[in-house]
């Protein structure tokens, strides 16, 4: 088999295309976050109380042995910080961090539910005063009321379909203040805790904003949005006209262009 110069050039074109495609795909896979696991120091003394052991081992380095905070991290017992706040940060995996400069982003929790209960109980003995862990009963809420309250108070940042959105923050702002996270994976307790304590840039929606029925209703609507009536076929990520436009061009116009190329001829073709 012999190759002419034209064949070689063609193969080069194909290779360049493959490389370009690879680069584009590699660019798309970039997420900018590392997922290194938290490694507690093995040299810490073990206390009788499991919550105290974990707190001293994993939290005290930044938040202080009495919970009052250090230069590396804020107090966990002042203001709205307390059981609801600690349960929220730990059970959504935002805490603990490997390094205080890292963004506090949601991921899987590092502890079992009973360990988290112990941590929270221990911090209350330090004098944490903020809201208690709420009891949520979304089944008692009115979903229509929840829809109204969600659209009015939450949708502008977390998006109408709860897929999350961005906040207009400068690049030197903490990463957690750049986005309003999507709510697809959040549990009902954590949704309510977030409203009570206002983590990151989120405002506080406390007792002066909502009553118990409001909380239950909002949680009911968010839970509905996590698995909504998806009539009409593939939901395309619930992100609206951007993905719809891409499908319109690629699938819609793409298929019709394929069709006319199939029906039609090109120059030199019969």
């Amino acid at each position: 088999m012999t190759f002419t110069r034209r064949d070689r050039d063609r193969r080069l074109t194909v290779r360049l295309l493959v490389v370009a495609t690879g680069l584009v795909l590699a660019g798309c896979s970039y997420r900018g976050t590392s997922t290194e696991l938290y490694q507690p120091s093995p040299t810490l003394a073990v206390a009788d109380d499991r919550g105290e052991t974990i707190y001293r081992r994993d939290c005290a380095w930044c938040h202080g042995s009495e919970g009052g905070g250090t230069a590396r991290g804020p107090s966990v017992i002042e203001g709205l910080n307390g059981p609801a706040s600690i349960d929220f940060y730990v059970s959504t995996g935002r805490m603990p961090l490997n390094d205080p400069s890292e963004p506090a982003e949601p991921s899987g929790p590092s502890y079992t539910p009973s360990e988290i209960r112990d941590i929270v109980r221990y911090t209350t003995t330090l004098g944490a005063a903020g809201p208690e862990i709420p009891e949520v009963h979304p089944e008692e809420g009115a979903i229509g009321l929840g829809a109204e309250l969600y659209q009015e108070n939450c949708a502008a940042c977390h998006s109408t379909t709860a897929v999350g959105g961005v906040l207009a923050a400068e690049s030197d702002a903490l990463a957690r203040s750049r986005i309003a996270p999507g709510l697809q994976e959040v549990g009902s307790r954590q949704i309510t805790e977030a409203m009570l304590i206002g983590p990151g840039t989120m405002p506080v929606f406390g007792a002066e904003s909502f009553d118990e029925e409001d909380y239950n209703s909002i949680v009911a609507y968010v839970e509905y949005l996590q698995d909504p009536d998806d009539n009409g076929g593939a939901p395309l990520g619930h992100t609206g006209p951007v993905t719809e436009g891409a499908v319109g061009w690629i699938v819609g116009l793409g298929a019709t262009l394929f069709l006319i190329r199939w029906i039609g001829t090109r120059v030199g073709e019969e």
Partner: protein
Amino acid sequence: MLKKVARWIDNRLGTSAFTQDALNKVFPDHWSFMVGEIALYAFVVLIVTGIFLSFFFDASTSQSVYDGSYAPLVGVEVSDAYKSTLEISLDVRAGLVMRQTHHWAALVFVAAIVVHLCRIFFTGAFRSPRELNWIIGITLLILAIFNGFTGYSLPDDLLSGTGLRIAYSIALSVPLLGTWMGFLIFGGEFPADQIISRLLVTHIMIVPALIIGLLTAHLALLWRQKHTQFPEPGRTEHNVVGSKLWPTYAAKSLGLFFGVFAILVLMGGLFQINPIWLYGPFEPQQVSSPAQPDWYLGWVDGALRLFPAVELRAFGFEIPNPFYPGVLLPGVTFLALYAWPFLEQAFTHDREPHNLLDRPRDRPMRTALGATTLAFYTVMFIASSSDLIAKWFTVSVLDLVRVFQVLVILIPPAVGWATYRLMKALAGSGAPRLTEMPLSALTHPNGRGNGAFPHQERGRDAHAGGATAGDDGDGRSAARTGGDGALPAQRIDDRE
């Protein structure tokens, strides 16, 4: 029986001679000549599904408490427009597939018009004597975009209300007239009660009537002036080589119609579009997120996001910031499009009629300018999803906007320069197609006749002297075009 009816009609109207002529009309074959037909058939789908939707839509903003079948909104106060769209989507039999097909057809309709416009531009089909049809085509594009936006705004959900608020703000930004215009169009201060019913009349009567009228003129002019064709052996400025309308082209076109219809209905059934039940009803104090227009207004949205925060005062009046990206840019865009055939004539001094098309490489400067323009609008179009891109890549959206502000200036000239070089190289290589061009041509753009394609000269003059033949009724007249006889079984027609 059929013959009898035909004879009866012919005796009274004398239609048979015209029909005979029409059925024998020759259309040149090239796949890209059918892009406009995609738009035409998408428009037919829009009308069919739109009529269905109009049976059930109620364009009223009067509010009532929803108590229909969609449980999550029971007890919520909604407008009749939103309620009827919910009913179309969730209660009316086949309502959702009709609504979704209508919406997908709108996206494909405008997309096909834009691709058709590109085909006309890059092949020089707008040149004399077809400037009029170019102008009609640009008007059709504007009307299509406008009608898309009015349709997007009808359901009175939170997303469309956000879009209307932006449109209202753009109207307000026009110096001196803005406030009056906003009030005139909306019937009062936003959100005015009458806007939905006004939008409906515009969307289903005024603009469609204009589109149908101009579309008819567009096709009549095409019929009268006959279609352009690519230069090929046997094809000259004075003939049309291709298939007869009946049966060949009619069969192709009918097949395309069914194909487009099938694709759009399939999309309507398989892909969710604009799930307004999830977006919720519009409330003036609320705003949806992420909020984008449908794709064909993405470039305006992107321009609004990218335009720097400049406010100028002239003669004591402030020119509000959205005026530049929201009014001036679209105005200049469409004016430049209208003027293009005449601008090019002024630059090239070529006012001769042309029935043979250019290949993009034949006119590297035009092709490069077109690519530059497309790149400019594409960057703005992508910038309209800056919030989603920032979220997906967890970067600061403000940084991203600054990056796009630089890219929108840097990328278009780079694309233009690269296109120019590519077209020069392609023309120099003599390769019949871009994919067959040797890469060495890029480094030696003037290496014409470098040996790769010695027999592929397709110059416009190569066959310009070929003889032409008129109708001879047997459909095999191509054999009479002279020595090369390249197109057997093709049909040839004289141009007047």
